[in-house]
């Protein structure tokens, strides 16, 4: 890759990671004043804040690489559904508390490992964002791991809800470990994470947690993919109509 190719690819990569963080942060923020008790309400809002903060860092970097009028906000508020590149797991509607927590756990295991790798990136900005994210993700994982145990090994109802959530989520996890040409090239340049390589450890951790939580690893074989190509579930468009409303209705202003 030429330097300019690399910059362009890095920009896209930063947008992808920003999209993951923003969309998950948005979903978590939907729990505000809807949590099962006040402490958990605040904890969920707090995690949401971490992710939206992370999105700002990735978008800010992408905007810098883009130049011109591009800002974190143009990236968040002025792209439509097909231009978003988040992995699908992040966008699924929140479901019940078990669904939200199972998703969070599966993603926290992934994201922590991912950010630990990204800390080694040859791109100093990405490495710095990752370093900050690692600390947050460690806390997120501790929390969501605890919830897996509490809900999986709680009441029959909580166990059943958690098992059902896992079954519903499982097919969306495979995409987390896909590498497309862009990421392959960036990985070879030492910039991007080789996420395919994260799978074995991720699966070991998940297996161990589920076993401890008396939950079964889903066995149904299905896999849905598309987020990195802008192919989304139908829920994303609705999320964006909400997220972007003010900016779309009153374009070009300062807030």
């Amino acid at each position, binding site marked *: 890759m030429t330097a300019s190719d690399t910059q362009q690819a890095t920009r896209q990569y930063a947008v992808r990671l920003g999209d993951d963080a*923003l969309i998950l942060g948005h979903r978590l923020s939907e729990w505000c004043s809807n949590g099962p*008790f006040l402490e958990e309400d605040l904890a969920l*809002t707090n995690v949401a*804040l971490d992710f939206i903060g992370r999105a700002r860092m990735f978008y800010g970097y992408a905007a810098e690489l883009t130049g011109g009028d591009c800002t974190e906000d143009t990236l968040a508020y002025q792209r439509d559904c097909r231009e978003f590149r988040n992995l699908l797991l992040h966008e699924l509607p929140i479901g019940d508390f078990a669904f939200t927590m199972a998703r969070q756990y599966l993603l926290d295991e992934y994201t922590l490992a991912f950010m630990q790798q990204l800390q080694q990136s040859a791109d100093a900005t990405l490495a710095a964002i990752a370093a900050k994210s690692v600390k947050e993700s460690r806390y997120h994982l501790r929390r969501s791991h605890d919830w897996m145990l509490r809900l999986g090994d*709680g009441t029959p109802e*909580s166990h059943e*809800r958690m098992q059902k959530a896992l079954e519903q989520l499982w097919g969306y996890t495979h995409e987390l470990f896909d590498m497309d040409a862009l990421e392959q090239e960036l990985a070879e340049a030492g910039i991007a994470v080789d996420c395919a390589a994260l799978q074995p450890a991720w699966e070991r951790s998940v297996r161990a947690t589920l076993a401890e939580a008396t939950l079964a690893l889903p066995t149904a074989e299905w896999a849905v993919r598309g987020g990195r190509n802008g192919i989304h579930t139908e829920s994303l468009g609705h999320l964006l109509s909400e997220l972007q409303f003010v900016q779309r209705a*009153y374009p070009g202003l*300062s807030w």
Partner: protein
Amino acid sequence: MSQPDAAQQETLFQTRIDAEEKIEPKDWMPEKYRQNLIRQISQHAHSEVIGMQPEGNWITRAPTLHRKCVLLAKVQDEGGHGLYLYSAAETLGITREELIEGLHSGKAKYASIFNYPSLTWADMGAIGWLVDGAAIVNQVSLQRTSYGPYSRGMVRICKEESFHQRQGYHIMMTLARGSAEQKAMAQDALDRFWWPSLMMFGPHDAESAHSAQSMKWKIKRQSNDELRQKFVDQSVKQAEVIGLTIPDPDLKWNEERGHYDFGEIDWEEFTRVINGDGMCNRQRLAHHIRAHEEGQWVRDAITAHEAKQRERAASAAA
């Protein structure tokens, strides 16, 4: 040693109050003092928690990522205040579950301002500026309240609230300096939230049911009308700075009093909204009840999980 009789205890209690001593959870206190405090602290706590709803309503629609983060953090702080205050109330011998039951049954109140809907982004500005502003005026005064845990809670809360107020004011300022549409949006929010903010201080002193005793016990330190005046005085200047108009034709500086005179509050509306005819009374409670009920299985799971853990620990130790 013989127990002092009730009258003696009450006299002793009042002496301590008069000497500006703080009353602590284990100290003797008149039952009515305790009840009065529970009522006030629980109302305050519920207000923080119910207040998460009108602002939570705009988190998913905040117009910039920066504003979204600030709003998320703010709403989180408010929930946190709710937590301190529930804890303060618990020191008086009531449980969280009882407090929540009081809210759900309608026995306990919350600030009536949260029965107004948040309809535009500017409302996030108006709520921060005016509603938090009014709350601070009240809370600053309550830093000197006679009950120790409540007083210390207020000190902690005041710091964060003044930060929130500045953020709200900054939203209003940005809108007021923005496009004509934005300025109109800001003015509209001010128009809708101004009078309800004045109502936050409660009825005139003469009509205030709990005031006299509360002042004597130093649960309250300043009267409703004094606090309201302080709020009006500070807000008028803030509105001028950003070029917004306070919706009160009777508002004018009174050189003699050294304060702003202002129009009479529509107490009929105040009563109407408190009694259930506000836009959102039912919605706010129904929302809280729904979330609480939907969370039952989660709370049950925690209890069950902890019981299992204890059993395992016990059988491992045996």
